[in-house]
């Protein structure tokens, strides 16, 4: 991942991924409050997203 020096990303490009992660984790935070069973499973899956992404980006990506 070596972005070209001249390439400037727009605000929407910068924030689209963080926004998706925020929406997904908010779903997870609310989900387990609503019900048990499948709702719990939904919240485990969605709240795992930030943790999994962090691990992927920091540990499992090949260094450039």
């Amino acid at each position, binding site marked *: 991942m070596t972005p070209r*020096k001249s*390439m400037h990303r727009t605000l929407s490009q*910068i924030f689209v991924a963080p926004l998706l992660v925020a929406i997904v984790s*908010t779903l997870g935070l609310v989900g387990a409050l609503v019900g048990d069973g499948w709702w719990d499973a939904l919240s485990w899956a969605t709240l795992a997203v930030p943790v999994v992404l962090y691990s992927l980006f920091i540990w499992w*990506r090949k260094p*450039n």
Partner: protein
Amino acid sequence: MTAATRSLRRWGFVHKWTSLICTLFMLLLCITGLPLIFHEEIDDLLHSQVKPAEVAADAPLADLDHLLANAIANAPGQVPHFLIWDRDDPNAMFVSVGPSITSDPSKNLLIRMDAHTGAYLDAPDVTGRFTYIMLKLHTDMFAGLPGKLFLGLMGILFCVAVISGIVVYAPSMRKLSFGTYRAGRTRVVRWLDVHNLAGILLVAWTLVVGFTGVINTWADLVLKMWQYGQLAEMTAQYRDRSVPAKLTSVNAAVEVAAHAVPGMTPSFVAFPGSIFSSKSHYAVFLRGNTPLTSRLLKPALVDAETGALTDSRDMPWYVSTLFISQPLHFGDYGGMPLKILWALLDVLTIVILVTGVYLWVRRRRAGVSVDRVIARSSGIESPALSS
């Protein structure tokens, strides 16, 4: 300097100072909060407790007056403040007792009772426990209400730091794709990437846990507001009465309350004169049966002289807000997997705090602005930082 640059600088200033002021306390909160996520498991591991009798699932519950008498017989000179159903163990109940009905309930002794036989189980002194010390450090640093409100203020600064962090994230990522980690670069660049990535991934969680934590610091004030508001209204006609010399049956009071509010389960009873009731009433607090409604309590006030229902109302919005903010802060509403995720997210928050302090120290020591590293983040590093 353009207006946009000036505005960004201001946000950078806000991010730096709100973070710096709260970091030390946030580290304390994150570190003490980590074992608190698993407080039940830790207590079970470190301390043995008397187990309630093994009974069939549909075994009848003990008469509450009998259970209460057994509890008081084991705590001479004490008076009951609260009778509490154990959320986690339907076979056990607690009787919370103090030296007098007006004594400080936070110093009460909690007596565990068998919910089916009504027999005394145990009344361990929890104040020396590891989880108790963590809880005190986490909620008020052993400094009472001022300590609590101070930590609440730190929580507000933390929330501002998260929000300003979102703003300063943008210029930092102008030339980088989402999730960039420049593994081959110097530590200051790597840790900046870690700080940015973890910070932006955790925005929703840190804001929710941070802000619900702030709300929890206001619990004492919310309770006072409720006492002087709704509770006073509901018991206005009883205002000048004193605590009845002889109380009616608590078992009957719970039955009256359960009958008045069908479909809800009793959660705890506050005795007349205790902080959650008037001087003349049993306040029976009932809860719903879903993860959300089980947090929302509804009081039914039963006259402790006549045994008749006085009133039952839903609690006002500010109390409901407090109740809902509790599970969202504790992470105890979705089983063990949710607790484990809570712990992982907590550890990542510690990573954000530590990398944040490092970036600030580095900037001061090198005399080179991290802003500049940010500004030319895909370009050549400043020679001062490439050591």
